[in-house]
């Protein structure tokens, strides 16, 4: 296996151990729950916010946090600095086109096609909506890009007292996904060579997909049964708790992060309100 393959493998490996990228990339060292709890109020505010200053401030805050505190791979950088701006531009224009012209008729008229008038104000409304969406997305990436699935489950079990049977079963079930994907491919091939591919249109397609369900379910249930027998055989559920080798503690720095994030959120809102009110 070449180094490139190994890299690709690691990137797609949902179980790869959380790596420590040093003191500066501090987000990787925080408890997953802190990284969710910190941005959560801001995300709720963004759902209901208006105007441009509030969402753009939160967007900048989230991006700044990610750039400084997270180790970003090529894909993440591409997404954050190329795809996200492009998507925001597209959203801005789309939302602007849909905006009711009478609501923004007091702003400068940019162009007019027949009865349709496009005002600069519509662009502002579109931009506000796009910024809100982008803000919520980047805030969720603060945890999303710096947390592994197993760590999140461990934190849920250790801090939120989610029953471990639930958490670890979910993790085990996660392994089914690629397996089912592969199995579906094979079933598709098999049905195609057996002549199930005939017929076009949505009804034929629906019938075809219905045909995949039975073998996929049969295989899936059998696999799940085997996995559960294997887990039972290894004392899963023997006691109310289990030994945790990987502790995901909630430390002082996690409290500091949450507190600081909430404080920053409050400052942004207060300043924006003051400026908006002025």
């Amino acid at each position, binding site marked *: 296996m070449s180094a490139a393959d190994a890299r690709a493998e690691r990137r797609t490996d949902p*179980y790869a151990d959380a790596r420590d990228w040093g003191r500066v990339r501090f987000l990787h060292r925080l408890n997953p729950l802190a990284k969710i709890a910190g941005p959560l109020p801001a995300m709720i505010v963004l759902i209901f916010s208006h105007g441009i200053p509030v969402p753009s401030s939160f967007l900048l805050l989230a991006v700044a946090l990610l750039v400084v505190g997270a180790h970003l791979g090529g894909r993440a950088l591409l997404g954050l600095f190329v795809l996200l701006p492009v998507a925001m531009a597209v959203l801005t224009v789309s939302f602007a086109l849909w905006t009711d012209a009478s609501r923004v008729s007091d702003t400068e008229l940019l162009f007019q096609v027949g009865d349709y008038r496009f005002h600069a104000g519509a662009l502002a409304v579109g931009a506000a909506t796009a910024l809100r969406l982008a803000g919520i997305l980047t805030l969720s990436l603060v945890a999303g890009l710096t947390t592994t699935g*197993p760590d999140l489950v461990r934190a849920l079990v250790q801090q939120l007292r989610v029953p471990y049977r639930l958490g670890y079963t979910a993790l085990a079930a996660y392994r089914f996904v690629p397996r089912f994907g592969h199995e579906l491919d094979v079933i598709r091939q098999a049905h195609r060579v*057996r002549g199930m591919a005939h017929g076009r249109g949505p009804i034929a397609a629906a019938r075809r997909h219905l045909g995949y369900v039975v073998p996929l379910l049969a295989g899936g249930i059998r696999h799940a049964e085997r996995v559960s027998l294997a887990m039972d*055989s*290894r*004392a899963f559920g023997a*006691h109310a708790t289990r*030994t945790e080798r990987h502790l995901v503690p909630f430390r002082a720095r996690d409290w500091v992060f949450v507190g600081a994030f909430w404080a920053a959120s409050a400052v942004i809102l207060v300043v924006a309100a003051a400026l908006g009110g002025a």
Partner: protein
Amino acid sequence: MTEPTPLIEVEDARIRHLGSPAATPDGVTLTVSPGEVVLVLGPSGCGKSTLALALNGLVPHAVAATLEGEVRVAGVPTTETTVAALSAHVAMVFQDPDAQIVTGTVLDEVCFGPENLQLPVDEVLARAERALRQVGLWERRAENPDRLSGGGRQRLAIACALALGSGVIVLDEPTANLDPRGIDEVYAVLSALVRERDHAIVLVEHDLDAAMGLVDRVLVLDRHGRPIAEGPAGTVLRSRAQELLELGVWLPTATLAGLRMRAAGIPLPELPLTPAELTAALDALDTAGAAPPSSPTSRSSTSPSPTSPSRPAPTSGTTPPSRSPTPSDAPPPTLPEASARDGAAPAVRVRGLRVAKSRTSILHGIDLEVGRGDFLAVVGTNGAGKTTLLQAIAGVVPPPKGTVDVLGLDPSRADVRTLARTVGFVFQNPEHQFIRATVAEELAHGLELQSAADSSLNAPAIADRVNRMLDRFGLAGLRDAHPFLLSGGQKRRLSVGTALIAGAPVLVLDEPTFGQDRARAAELLGILSALNAEGTTVIVATHDLQLVADHASHVLVLTGGAVAAHGTTGAILGSDALESAGLRAPALVRALRATADPRWHGVTGLDGLEAAVRMPGPAHPEPGGARG
């Protein structure tokens, strides 16, 4: 160790699965003492695996079945405790390595059990390290288990069992899903465990060639799950070999060879159980004063046996009743195709076939010709490109245009209907290809597709052909059953039937024996050999090299997406092509090659063995002179 307390006591256990009329196993009594290795043998469906599940309480706690009698682990009846509590005494290793992995790294996986037992972290890690070192995976502890080979994942499962610290390890067909290299890896680990004698091992296994060297005691169940023999492995197998064979129990190849030789008139003082014993027995034979036999040429490749199906008795119990004359009693049929093979156009011609999947090249430039009526086995390690080659030939994944020709048809251009008439493909898992609600409809499906173009194929004609196919594969009583409700062997027969019913003269099968027990594998091979004898060209990808030796006329060895060797079975098995491709010659070939007398060296299959026994002919006195 002479007077140990039993770890497991099974007393008159009868286990009946929900909805099943009879109990299998039925009345089994067994004790397992520290350090001993017990092998459970029996034909398919006798309840071996069910018995294994009862040893750690999965039956009746987690599996819908009733248990009569009693199973005691460390003196406690399994019904009075939980599977989780029992896991500290009895650990399990199952057949499918993929279905046993729950975490994301090798180390986490091994720690999973001890963590569930609430052991302190130091102890968890100490046990994990010890277990991983025992199976040789400590260096790979940080990796995702998905990146291990099949054999590696099964060794991981053994490490997980070791880490539980239990006195007994129960292994249920641990090598059935592995390639030969994986089987070797698993048995290397098990041999080391047996040498230490720290654990008792209960083994349910069909591959006795590998297992025989480790086993102390065997328990044999008959078809109804009743115990018919129990005792030291050597004694039971040697004294009752013929009986076990008739029961449908798969014997070690060396023992089968011994039985054949006795039948051919060679009085072996003791039946061999392992390849090494067979070698010794043959050497003893030769030093007993035989005249040096005339040096044979590669017999298997020159004899007509390649086209003659040969399978010893174990198939008899499970073969479909319609296949009445077992091919081994019939004289090898001389096929027109076989004799005219060199002149006729090949059935399959592959030219410069290159296939890449997601930018990784899988096949780079395959050239291949398969003669009409050939039985070609495609062998190679995992990832050598066997499945990809077969899928390209059968048009399952259309190959590049002009690279594959099947009887004048290019699978990349053919429509489904024409393709189905020319080449039938049988998937590894038969369930994947079932698309109709009853067995009869499933068979009729291919013909219904053809009937759109062929007006002579009306409803009565289709029904007639379906009925004949049902009879042929012993499925007549199940014509209205749902395909998914058939047994494993029945599903496999149905999938072969559906591939054949449109009259395809070429049949391609991807790992048809993978994950199946020996009896089912033998049954399927019997069917394929019979079809082949009738002129069907058969192409099979397989890991089972003894099957290759006994059935295939030709062998194609793939390594890294290229043809490493291609020739008659005798020529390939006689060369070192398998070894250089990372495979291992089948047990019989290895045993025979190790003999001092070169007359055995060219023999590859059991039939060839008989021929070699007869080889010296009347002019050469045979030791013991008991022939004829």
